[in-house]
């Protein structure tokens, strides 16, 4: 069960909020400080992607982020409500283009046509996979979209103030 659940309207400006919340919870549950940049980048990428998907398919739907700290593992799941993407539904990672291939498709002039045009869908996912050791990208169980699930060890959990209380007195 998720310890914290966040839902936000599919707007880019809320992605930063999601990053800050992720970092705050990660610190609280004892994820190592050296992993904090990775946590923020990964959750930001997953949320940016979800915002893109919603903007394209159903802007009224909220993006859902679930935070859980069960079994000494900190897990963040970002759920979108778009149609399951072919490259996501396909379990074979080899089917996805490489980051370099995706970036080579960035059109120097594309951004002028539509301010919403960003990168090819999938670059964020590729970056997450390059960053985070424990990632699962799957169609949602209810068939309503995609779930990007990322986990980090809570190795610092024993150092939480509650556990370390009194040692400094």
């Amino acid at each position, binding site marked *: 069960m998720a310890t914290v659940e966040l839902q936000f309207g599919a707007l880019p400006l809320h*992605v930063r909020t999601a990053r800050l919340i992720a970092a705050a919870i990660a610190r609280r549950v004892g994820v190592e400080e050296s992993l904090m940049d990775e946590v923020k980048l990964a959750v930001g990428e997953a949320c940016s992607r979800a915002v893109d998907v919603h903007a394209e398919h159903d802007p009224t739907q909220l993006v859902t982020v679930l935070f859980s700290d069960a079994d000494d593992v900190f897990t963040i799941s970002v759920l979108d409500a778009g149609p399951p993407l072919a490259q996501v539904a396909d379990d074979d990672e080899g089917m996805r283009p490489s980051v370099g291939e995706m970036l080579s498709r*960035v059109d120097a002039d594309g*951004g002028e046509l539509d*301010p919403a045009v960003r*990168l090819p869908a999938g670059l*964020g996912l590729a*970056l997450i996979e390059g960053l985070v050791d424990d990632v699962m990208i799957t169609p949602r169980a209810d068939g309503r979209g995609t779930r990007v699930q990322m986990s980090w060890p809570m190795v610092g959990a024993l150092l939480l103030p509650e556990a370390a209380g009194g040692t400094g007195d």
Partner: protein
Amino acid sequence: MDLSLSTRTEGDRTIVKVGGEIDVYTAPKLREQLIDLVSSGAYHLVVDMEEVDFLDSTGLGVLVGGLKRVRAHEGSLRLVCTQERILKIFRITGLTKVFPIHSSVDEALSATD
């Protein structure tokens, strides 16, 4: 923190100093700045990222877009960055091979292809 942008010129080079967070929300501002510069004839850009706190794939896309724009005019786009957290993102995406990355603005300014 929001994105901050400032520009100055040194000879035929234009230095774009970027600070704060480059993400899905702020990257359009950077893209707009790069487009404006190229439109006004600035084809040799140095993007100083030393004060950037956060960079995501949207920001990478804007930089790649900027590179393609200046290259269309036989220009250049050099980055200044020594922050490991930002360099890591360029390494993971293979972009260290695409962008010349310098450790100081002076180094970028004196660099030639």
